[in-house]
């Protein structure tokens, strides 16, 4: 392991740990941003600079802002009414986390791409990514686009309903 990897890991792990342990929710979201930056750093470390920049653009530029808005709409920012350690909420949370973790673990382990090592000295090329997306992966790409469009229309419909209720 070289120094860059250790520094990036420290940043990423610290961000992730603070994001779940800090009591102040805004601080937690800001630590999450630190975590996003760490992940972007890992992409740069792996020579995938396009993915790294997109990570910053999407996660820091949009998802973090979305999370902040969500936090600001919640009532209790400092979580004074913290439930005890062995409450039902903790149990359900742990069950969900374990399920998601297990699914991810098996999905990643069973993926053939995981056993390959990256060819050395190959930098990612934006043009290649674009070409792949428009040829081999055009159906998944279009499906995702459709999903996002549906989500957007859904958001607009929800907002419009509120307007008509107010009148």
């Amino acid at each position, binding site marked *: 392991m070289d120094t860059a990897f250790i520094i990036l890991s420290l940043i990423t792990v610290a961000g992730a740990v603070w994001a779940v342990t800090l009591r102040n929710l805004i601080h937690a979201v800001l630590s999450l941003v630190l975590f996003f930056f760490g992940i972007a750093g890992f992409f740069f470390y792996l020579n995938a600079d396009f993915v790294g920049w997109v990570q910053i653009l999407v996660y820091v530029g*949009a998802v973090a802002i979305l999370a902040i808005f969500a936090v600001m709409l919640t009532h209790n920012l400092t979580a004074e009414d913290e439930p005890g350690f062995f409450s039902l909420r903790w149990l359900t949370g742990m069950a969900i986390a374990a399920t998601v973790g297990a699914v991810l673990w098996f999905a990643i382990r069973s993926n053939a791409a995981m056993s390959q090592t990256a060819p050395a000295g190959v930098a990612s090329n934006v043009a290649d990514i674009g070409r792949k997306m428009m040829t081999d992966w055009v159906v998944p790409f279009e499906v995702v686009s459709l999903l996002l469009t549906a989500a957007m229309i859904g958001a607009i419909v929800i907002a419009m309903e509120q307007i008509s209720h107010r009148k």
Partner: protein
Amino acid sequence: MYNFFDQLFVALGAWLVGLVVAAGNGVSKLCCGQPMSEAAAHNVAAGTQVVLICVTIYGVFALCFGLATWLERKMLARIQNRYGPNRVGPFGLLQFVADGVKMLTKEDIVPARADKLVHFLAPAIVLAPALLMFGFLPFGRNMAPTDLDTAVIAFFAVGAGSELALFMAGWGSRNKYSILGALRAVAQMISYEIPLVLAAVPVVMIVGSLSTSQIVAAQGTDSFLDVKGWFVWTPWGFAGFILFLIAATAESNRSPFDIPEGESEIIAGFHVEYSGFKFALFFMAEYLGMMAMAGLGVTLFLGGWHGPKLLPSWAWFMLKGFLIVCWLIWLRGTLPRLRVDQLMAFAWKAMLPFALFNIFATAVWFYLPKTTFLQSAVAWIITAALVVAAYLVISRFVSRRAGAPRVYRYAS
């Protein structure tokens, strides 16, 4: 002679790097009795280059920031029929030095109930993207600080970091005006980022690369004048340039899009609670961001460092950037501030569809044959007609409700 001035700074940088490597060799001989190994010498040279680039960018643009504040005050004074700063130095030119000293010696006030850490970090974080953005712009021939394959998207990604910093400033201050200003800033910057990026897309489509160096190279010709290839002369380039300028003004939170600060409504928005040098850092970030946006506008649409070979390439880059900054100052002195709902409607109902249509027009331009002069003229006219028609339809559609009074949805 021309080449000497054109490559002056490149040669100067190479000379300094050589000096540092020679000094390193000397030290190495003193300590170990032999010069540095080849790998070590390479590392020293690369490290020196990085330090030189950083120091040059910080130094040059910090000075530009100082002069831009003076220029802005002078120009606004001229527009408003008064003198402006004229006490310190000739024409008040040293006013920014005096202001800097004043800022440094002022008391740093932190509100008692502020979120101390976030309040402290925000001014530092807001400056980082503004400085980083300069790292992706080619300032002259052979004068690109970095030559990334993904420079344009990197520029926008880095710029996206500043909205978070503004939010941190507003939140950390624990002041109603601050948080209102921060939320306005976030909403505005997210909305205008979309037309900003979409305005840059046609250039990327035509060049076929996200690298700023290649975008500049695609606009160059071998002729003496070297202005023919600029993208701003094409219909889509012109429309994209206008869109880019408007969105860039909004991204750097400048009048008429300065509702996050809105002195008459929310005092000074997100930086109400900052004093002394922390306030100066916000000020600096705004100006540096504005200059970096001007630099990207020059790179994407105005041919980068290309220009008539009477001036060195870096002089052309700076001159064009300077003209855009002057235009922004002129705009600030001329137009009143927009209302929040007008601002949002303008971004989503006018700029976004127009930017999307501009991309379509660019695709039409791309596929039209342009080998002979007549073919190019026909392509130009067809694309121009498309762009103008789109502008007319969208502006009619939008202006129908532009003068309507504001509907208060949640506050009435």
